[in-house]
């Protein structure tokens, strides 16, 4: 059998991270290598080319397409204002002239003498890229952007919606197994990254939005409520561009699942500190998970040990499918032979001793993920 392993999600008090901040097109980089940046610092800027419109001049001027280029009122490349005359044709005996006005502000880009179409480009749209995390500019990508180096606490979620945001961490539920209810959210949570326990409902999220909470981090959430939140069933897990008014990160999955104590404790150790949060998730080749970064530049001790590349006896794992979904334990045996599951499937398994009650269970190796020590 091929070697395979589930890398699991990173939850660590110390990570060194690089975040690339790139413009969608070439532009200007506004910072230099070695510069200290805050999350809101604008690091690069550019202008996106405007949308293209086609204008059928031949039809509008009742002209043969071959004559359309000479009917342009301004040379190609000219910038024009909305309503300005861009092409003109004289009618019979030079009397009834027909004119075409610019559909918006823009530029005359090209014209075809075969089809008589004008390609008209709307004005450019300015785009700015922020640093997203507090850190230091590690490298400048000339004309494209920068790489920001940062270090601090780092937590990956399993699924998120909403884009990048930041705010101080606030622990709101009474513990990792408690639900985040609407009555716990108060006006002082505005612009904060609010941490709940095992579950949040749609009603509570609406309250968070009304209070302008920056982000909500919880163990679980119902898909039914996700549907209500997005206004549609989420078919393919490519998220991050939703405009919900806040960012939502699930640390465990769908349903009511206690947040792993390790994640809860890590966030609790950083109450009041600024966290950078991104809900962007892509589950396909080149997987991307949502993240919470709490930068602590130059204040950290030695980095935590990295994970090994496979399962070992004693390794800490979390079960990620029913019937033990969400439970945490340690690997107690790794039998090499295939085992029959209740479903009838013959697969490789492991024995797991659960942390909460010390009981043991047989679990398919494909259904667990490693947790960093």
């Amino acid at each position, binding site marked *: 059998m091929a070697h395979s392993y589930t890398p699991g999600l990173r939850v660590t008090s110390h990570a060194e991270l690089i975040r690339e901040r790139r413009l969608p097109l070439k532009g200007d980089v506004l910072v230099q290598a070695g510069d200290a940046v805050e999350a809101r610092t604008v690091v690069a800027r550019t202008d996106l080319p405007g949308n293209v419109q086609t204008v059928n001049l031949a039809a509008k001027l009742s002209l043969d397409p071959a004559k359309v280029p000479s009917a342009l009122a301004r040379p190609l490349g000219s910038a024009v204002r909305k309503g300005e005359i861009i092409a003109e044709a004289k009618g019979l005996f030079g009397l009834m002239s027909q004119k075409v006005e610019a559909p918006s502000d823009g530029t005359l880009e090209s014209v*075809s003498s075969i089809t008589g179409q004008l390609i008209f480009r709307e004005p450019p749209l300015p785009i700015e890229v922020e640093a997203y995390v507090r850190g230091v500019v590690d490298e400048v990508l000339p004309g494209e952007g920068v790489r920001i180096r940062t270090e601090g606490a780092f937590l990956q979620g399993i699924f998120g919606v909403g884009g990048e945001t930041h705010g101080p961490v606030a622990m709101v539920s009474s513990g990792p197994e408690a639900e985040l209810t609407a009555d716990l959210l108060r006006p002082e949570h505005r612009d904060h990254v609010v941490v709940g326990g095992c579950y949040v409902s749609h009603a509570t999220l609406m309250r968070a939005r009304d209070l302008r909470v920056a982000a909500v981090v919880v163990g679980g959430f119902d*898909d039914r409520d996700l549907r209500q939140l997005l206004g549609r069933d989420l078919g393919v897990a490519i998220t991050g561009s939703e405009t919900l008014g806040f960012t939502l990160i699930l640390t465990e999955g*769908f349903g009511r699942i206690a947040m792993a104590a390790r994640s809860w404790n890590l966030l609790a150790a950083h109450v009041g500190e600024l966290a950078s949060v991104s809900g962007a998730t892509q589950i396909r*080749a080149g997987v991307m998970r949502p993240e919470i970064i709490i930068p602590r530049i130059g204040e950290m001790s030695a980095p935590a040990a990295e994970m090994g590349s496979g399962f070992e006896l004693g390794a800490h794992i979390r079960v990620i499918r*029913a019937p033990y979904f969400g439970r945490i334990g340690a690997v107690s045996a790794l039998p090499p032979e295939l085992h029959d*599951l209740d479903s009838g499937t013959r697969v490789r398994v492991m024995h797991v001793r659960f942390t909460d009650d010390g009981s043991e269970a047989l679990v398919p190796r494909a259904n667990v993920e490693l947790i960093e020590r």
Partner: protein
Amino acid sequence: MSAPPLVRSILATDCGSTTTKAILIERGESGYRLVSRGEAPTTVEAPFEDVTRGVLNAVREIEELRGRRMLDGDRILTPQNGDEGVDLYVSTSSAGGGLQMMVSGLVLQMTGESAQRAALGAGAIVMDVIALNDGRRPHEKIQRLRQLRPDMILLSGGTDGGDTLRVVEMAEILAAADPKARLGAGYELPVIFAGNQAAVPMVRECLEKRTALLVVPNLRPTLERENLRPARDAIHELFMEHVMAHAPGYKKLMTWSRVPIMPTPGAVGLIIEKIAKRDSIAVVGVDIGGATTDVFSVFQEVFNRTVSANLGMSYSVSNVLAEAGIENILRWVPFDVDEVELRNRIKNKMIRPTTIPHTLEDLVIEQAISREALRLAFEQHKQLATGLKGIQTERTISDIVNQSESGASLVDLLQLGLLVGSGGVLSHAPRRVQSALMMVDAFLPEGVTELAVDSIFMAPQLGVLSTVHEEAATQVFEADCLIRLGSVVAPIGAAREGQPCVTVQLTGPGVDASPRRVAFGELVVLPLPADGKLRLTATPEKGFDLGAGKGRPIETEIRGGVVGLIVDARGRRPFQLPSTTAERIRRLRAWNAALSVYPREV
């Protein structure tokens, strides 16, 4: 390309999005047989960014299992020398998300659809079809072309000698969009023009300086005729020259094999076409993966392939729920499930796509979802596998009686001879009868249809092998790849539950020859020997049709199979499950028990 005089051993690999699979075929006394297989994670992404690493790892696994050397460092040893090396190496690939194309035509339902068929048949995923009448304004088309960053564009439109102006208009839109290829800005985007040949000089003027333009004969030279082959060949050629050559490590991999690397689905399509041709039957093949479901068919000697890019069992499982609706999934589950709980289970599979069902209930739910994924993919296939649209035909009295029209689907389930399933949920189901029933429930075959599954999903490797060594590909396909499950007899018609529906009788060695009467609403299985052929006589009751007319018996030869002969008297046209939950569960449980689908009642 001709085969070498005597090929003793063949190594074939398939570089999938997540796994690279290798098989070793050797020639023995009984011909060519699969002797070993290995697999390893595909390595197109960081940190390796070199597909050959995954190939070497998969081959190394075979080396270890067989105790036979096939690699010399980072190179495959060819030809075979003594017990070392192999005589032939071939490969397919869908790594990096496969070949992603946009196609364009003038009219969506005519040249647009022909262009789509050409691209799908070549093994591509069609990201969008752009046409003059697609309802989008030109700037929206331009925006779309820019956003999607396809690997290649197929531009068609106009019949030969027909409209040139509007063909050039499409080329101008493409030029204005100036789309960039997905795999990097370092090379020009390949564009194939397969439209009105009179427009070629103008299309060249418009696109030649901006793109890697290749002009081929028109794929719709007249309204009545499609000529897809030149466009398909050009897609394969540009796939090799441009797309694959820029994917990490492929330049090296291409030097290892003297046979061109094919897109995986293109190779599977080849093998389906060959079965249909060899046995002179209509065939439907399906490959249900984690992200996509491919359906292949050959009806009336016309090959069609469709890709349902967002119907799959892991990455796309949530989209099956979105498209099918929760009630359609629940109708296959023989126990009460809370809707909130089911939704959460499906989403949890999506966010952790590599997990497998641990409990029997979880397996049943997964197989319920697969029925809907297969059904939807087949619906999409039927819509595209059609005759040519837009043709004026002289209608006769018989056409009016049969209600036939141009553009009708070629898929005729009464004509279907063989249904082949492949992909994790079908190939790796704990019991083969589960695969058979998933296919029957999703495709609803009619009359008499044989069922089979691909044992370990090696059809891609055998497809590309068939281009250079048909004998080896065919022998391994029959002996090691195709697992014959048996056949299904399904009469068209409806009656009250318990009323007589059909009587079947098998004659041949090793079977009970007494006739078996099956009542409407029942699902039964009669054992068959694993190999050999038998004679089947099936007599439908009045009002039921097996293809010979209502109440008329049919006699046919069927092959043996590991599941047996399934007699599906649950009705067709319509096939209906009871509307009340309690009754539906009772019936599902009865059918599962009759076929021993699961080890215990769920």
